[in-house]
C-alpha cells in the first residue's frame, strides 16, 4: 500500500491535480475571506465613495470576484427619490490593476462599469461640481479608474423652471484617456414639458458622439443627433479659446440614417428615384430634393473670451444660397446677444446690389431688468418687372417671453412689437401690443402658427402655415381684424382717408401658385375725407358736405397679386349718397373701374347747379344715379359719364354750346385735382 501510495503520489498527473485543487481552495478561501473583510468594512467603503461622489452613498452588498474585480450591489444615495438629487445603480463593477498591486504595491482602479444607473439632478449645485472636479484632479494619477463604461444609463434633469430633461443611454458609453469620450447608440429623450422638444419633435432624440481630449483642448471626432425632424452631424476641434466646427444639418433625417452605411443609402435613394421617374413622378422627386431645411457645408468658428463668446464666422449654403453669420454673446453685466448675416458674402458689394436674393440681416437681444428685448432688421430686394427695389423690414420687440405650450407648441409673447416696412417710396409702421403667438412644428418641413395682438384700438388674429423651402418659402395665412380705429389704420388703405369709424377686415394670404392677398374690409359709422373723387364732386356740385362724407357702412372686397390689384363690391352707404363699384389697378399703373353714384333729391336741391336739373326729375324720383367709367393712369384717371335716362333728358334740353362749356369746366376741375405731372 505504501509502495503504491508513494508511486502514485509522485506521478505528474496526480501532482498537477493536487496543485490545482489546492490553488482553487486557496482562491476560494481567499475570496471568502476577502469578501468577509470587505463586507465588514462596508461603512468605510461607503464613506470613501460618498466623499468621491460628493453625495452620501450606501451600498447593500459588496463582492470580490477573482482576480481583480469588485462588484457593488444596489449602490444608492440616501433616500433616493425623484424629489432630490440622487443616484442609484443596481450593480457597479470595478476592476483594479493586479499587476500594479503586485509590482508597485499600489491599489488603483483600472476600469469601472456601471450597470443601468439612474441619476436624478435637481438644479446644478456649483459647489458639488467643483468638489468632484477637485477630487478628479487630486486623483488623476492614482485612485480613480481611467476607463469608465456606462451600460444603459438614465439621467433625469429637473431644471429650475420646472422643465424636465431625460437622458437615456441605451447602449454603452465609454470614457477612455486615449480614445476620449464616446457614446454609442446613446439616446436623449426629451419630455414634452421641455422647450427644445417643440423644435425637435416629441419622441426620442438619437445621439452619438466621440470626443478626444488633447493637450490644448479637445477633438470632437463625431457628433450626430437625429430624430424624425432633424439630423445634425458635427466634427471639429477646440484649441485653447478657438472652437472650429464643420458639419451639416438636414430636416430630412430619413436620408441620413445614422446606422446605415452611406453607400447603401445612396444606392437605395437612386433606385427609388429611378422608380419614381418611370411612374412619371420625376417632378415630385426633384421638388422633394430641393425642399426642407438643409445645410450641408456648415463651417463655423467660435472664440471664447473671459467676458464674451464670439461667433467669428459661420459660413453655410442654404439650398444653394451662400450665407455668412457673425455674432457675439456677452453674459455680463447685461446678458446681450447680437448677430449679423448676409447672403452672397463673397460677392463684391456693388455686384450684390443686383442679385435678387440679396439679404442683409441684423438682430440683437438683451436681458434688461428681468425681461428680454430684441430687434431685427432685414434688408432685401423686391423684383418688379426688370427692376429690383430695395425693401426693409424692422421688428422691435420688448419683454419677449418664450415658453412651451400645452401640446407641442412653442409660445412666443411680446409686450409690444413695433413693425416697420420701408418700400423705396413709402413706409408703413404698426405698433402691436400684447402679442401672443404659438408655433407648432409640422410632420413635414415647416410649422403652423397662430398670432394674436392688439393694434389701433382693436385686435388682430392670424393663423397659418409656413413651409421651409429656401428657394421660395411657401406660406398661407388667414387674418382677422376687428374693432380697429379707422383713422389710425387709414394709412394702410391707399387712396382713402378716414377721420373716424370702426374697421373690420378678413384677409387671406397665400404664396402658391403666386403670392396673393385677398379679403374684405368693412368700416362702420365713419367719415371719409380727402378722397379725390369726392373732393371734385364737392367742388363741382358746390355741396361742401360731400368733401367729408359721413357713412353708416363702407365695404369693399380686394385682391392683390403680381398681375393686378382689384377692389370690387365697393359700397358706401350714406344718407346723402350711395356709392357702389369696382376698381382694378395693374402693375403698369393703368386702372379700370366702374362707379355708380346715387344722390338723393334733397342733396341735389342743395346745389345751385343741380337745382335746375331737379326739375327734370319726375315727382316719384327720390334719387338720381350717375354711372361713371374710370380708366387710364392711376394718378390721372379718365372719367366717362355713362348713358342713363337722366343724362338723355338733360342732353335734350341743353344747347350744344352749354354741353361743350360744361365738358370743359369739368375737365379743368379734374385736371386740377389729378396728380398728373
Amino acid at each position, binding site marked *: 500500500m505504501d509502495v503504491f501510495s508513494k508511486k502514485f503520489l509522485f506521478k505528474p498527473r496526480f501532482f498537477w491535480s493536487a496543485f490545482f485543487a489546492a490553488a482553487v481552495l486557496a482562491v476560494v478561501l481567499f475570496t471568502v475571506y476577502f469578501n468577509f473583510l470587505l463586507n465588514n468594512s462596508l461603512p468605510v467603503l461607503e464613506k470613501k465613495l460618498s466623499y468621491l461622489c460628493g453625495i452620501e452613498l450606501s451600498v447593500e452588498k459588496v463582492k470580490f470576484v477573482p482576480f481583480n474585480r469588485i462588484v457593488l450591489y444596489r449602490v444608492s444615495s440616501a433616500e433616493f427619490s425623484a424629489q432630490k438629487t440622487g443616484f442609484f445603480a443596481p450593480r457597479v463593477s470595478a476592476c483594479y490593476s493586479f499587476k500594479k498591486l503586485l509590482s508597485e504595491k499600489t491599489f488603483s482602479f483600472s476600469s469601472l462599469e456601471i450597470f443601468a444607473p439612474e441619476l436624478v439632478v435637481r438644479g446644478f449645485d456649483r459647489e458639488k461640481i467643483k468638489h468632484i472636479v477637485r477630487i478628479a484632479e487630486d486623483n488623476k494619477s492614482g485612485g480613480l479608474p481611467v476607463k469608465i463604461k456606462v451600460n444603459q444609463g438614465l439621467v433625469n434633469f429637473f431644471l429650475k423652471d420646472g422643465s424636465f430633461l431625460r437622458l437615456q443611454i441605451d447602449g454603452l458609453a465609454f470614457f477612455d484617456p486615449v480614445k476620449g469620450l464616446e457614446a454609442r447608440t446613446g439616446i436623449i429623450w426629451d419630455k414634452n414639458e421641455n422647450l427644445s422638444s417643440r423644435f425637435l419633435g416629441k419622441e426620442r432624440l438619437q445621439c452619438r458622439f466621440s470626443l478626444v481630449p488633447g493637450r490644448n483642448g479637445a477633438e470632437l471626432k463625431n457628433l450626430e443627433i437625429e430624430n424624425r425632424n432633424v439630423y445634425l452631424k458635427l466634427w471639429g476641434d477646440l484649441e485653447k479659446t478657438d472652437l472650429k466646427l464643420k458639419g451639416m444639418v438636414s430636416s430630412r433625417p430619413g436620408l441620413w440614417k445614422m446606422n446605415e452605411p452611406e453607400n447603401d443609402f445612396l444606392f437605395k435613394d437612386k433606385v427609388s428615384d429611378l422608380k419614381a421617374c418611370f411612374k412619371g413622378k420625376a417632378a415630385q422627386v426633384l421638388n422633394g430634393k430641393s425642399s426642407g431645411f438643409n445645410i450641408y457645408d456648415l463651417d463655423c468658428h467660435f472664440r471664447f473670451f473671459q467676458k464674451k463668446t464670439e461667433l467669428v464666422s459661420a459660413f453655410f449654403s442654404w439650398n444653394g444660397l451662400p450665407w455668412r453669420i457673425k455674432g457675439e454673446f456677452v453674459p455680463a453685466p447685461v446678458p446681450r446677444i447680437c448677430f449679423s448675416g448676409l447672403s452672397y458674402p463673397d460677392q463684391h458689394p456693388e455686384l450684390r446690389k443686383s442679385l435678387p436674393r440679396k439679404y442683409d440681416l441684423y438682430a440683437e437681444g438683451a436681458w434688461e431688468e428681468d425681461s428680454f428685448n430684441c430687434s431685427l432688421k432685414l434688408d432685401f430686394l423686391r423684383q418688379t418687372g426688370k427692376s429690383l427695389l430695395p425693401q426693409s423690414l424692422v421688428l422691435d420687440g420688448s419683454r419677449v417671453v418664450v415658453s412651451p405650450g400645452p401640446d407641442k407648441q412653442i409660445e412666443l409673447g411680446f409686450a409690444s412689437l413695433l413693425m416697420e416696412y420701408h418700400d423705396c417710396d413709402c413706409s408703413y409702421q404698426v405698433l402691436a401690443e400684447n402679442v401672443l403667438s404659438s408655433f407648432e412644428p409640422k410632420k413635414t418641413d415647416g410649422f403652423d402658427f397662430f398670432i394674436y395682438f392688439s393694434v389701433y384700438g382693436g385686435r388682430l388674429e392670424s393663423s397659418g402655415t409656413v413651409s421651409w423651402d429656401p428657394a421660395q418659402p411657401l406660406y398661407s395665412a388667414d387674418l382677422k381684424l376687428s374693432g380697429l380705429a379707422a383713422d389710425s389704420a387709414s394709412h394702410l388703405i391707399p387712396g382713402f382717408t378716414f377721420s373716424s369709424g370702426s374697421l373690420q377686415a378678413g384677409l387671406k394670404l397665400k404664396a402658391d401658385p403666386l403670392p396673393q392677398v385677398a379679403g374684405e374690409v368693412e368700416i362702420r359709422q365713419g367719415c371719409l375725407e380727402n378722397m379725390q373723387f369726392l373732393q371734385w364732386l364737392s367742388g363741382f356740385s358746390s355741396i361742401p358736405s360731400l368733401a367729408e362724407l359721413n357713412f353708416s357702412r363702407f365695404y369693399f372686397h380686394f385682391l392683390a397679386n403680381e398681375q393686378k390689384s382689384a377692389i370690387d363690391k365697393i359700397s358706401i352707404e350714406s344718407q346723402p349718397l350711395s356709392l357702389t363699384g369696382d376698381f382694378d389697378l395693374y402693375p403698369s399703373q393703368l386702372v379700370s373701374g366702374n362707379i355708380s353714384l346715387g344722390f338723393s333729391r334733397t342733396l341735389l336741391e342743395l346745389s345751385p347747379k343741380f337745382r335746375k336739373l331737379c326739375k327734370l326729375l319726375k315727382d316719384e324720383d327720390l334719387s338720381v344715379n350717375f354711372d361713371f367709367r374710370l380708366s387710364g393712369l392711376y394718378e390721372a384717371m379718365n372719367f366717362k359719364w355713362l348713358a342713363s335716362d337722366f343724362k338723355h333728358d338733360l342732353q335734350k334740353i341743353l344747347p350744344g354750346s352749354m*354741353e361743350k362749356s*360744361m*365738358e370743359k369746366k369739368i375737365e379743368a376741375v379734374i385736371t386740377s385735382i389729378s396728380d398728373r405731372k
Partner: protein
Amino acid sequence: MNLSRLCFLPVVMFSLWVMPGTALPADDQALFQKGVNAGISNQTDFAFSYFDMIVKNHRGSRYYPQALFSSGEYFFRSRAFRDAKHMFRELSNDYSDSELRPFALAYLLRLAKQEGKRLEAKELEKEIVKARQVCLVFKDFKEYSFTSPLNIIYKAQFFIDKVEVYINGRLFEEIPF
C-alpha cells in the same frame, strides 16, 4: 489766266465749307416755311431737305420738334425705319408736352410691332394711353387733330377704353385698354 483762276479757288472753297453750317438763327423760320410750302406742293424730298437742315443746325429752334417729326415721317414713308425710329424716339423722349408726341408714339408702336418687339409695344401702348387725360361728360370720345408740315392730317380719338390714331382719315393704330 491760270493764276487768276487759282486766286478764286480759295474763295469758292471757303464758301462751300462755310455755307451749309452758317444759317443764321433767324433762318430757321424761313427754312421751316420753305419746307411747309414744299410739303403743300407735294414736293416731299425738298421739304425733307429743309427740315433736315433745321434738325442738324437748329437744335434749340421752336420749329425743331415739328422738323424732327416731319423728318421721321419722311424716313418712315421712305421705309428707312431705323432713322425714322431715331427721330420719333428723340421727339417722344425730349418733348413730353408736345402735341406731336402721341403720333410719334403711334409710329414707334407700329415699328415695334413690325419688329416683333412685344414688350416694347406694350410699353408704347401704355405711353399713348397716358398721353392724354379725358373727361367725357356728354361726348363719347375726345379728339386731337394735327396737320404735319408734310401736309399729312393726323387725328387721335381718346375713348374711355381705347385710343384710335388716324392718318389722312385711315385708321393707323387702335390701342384698347
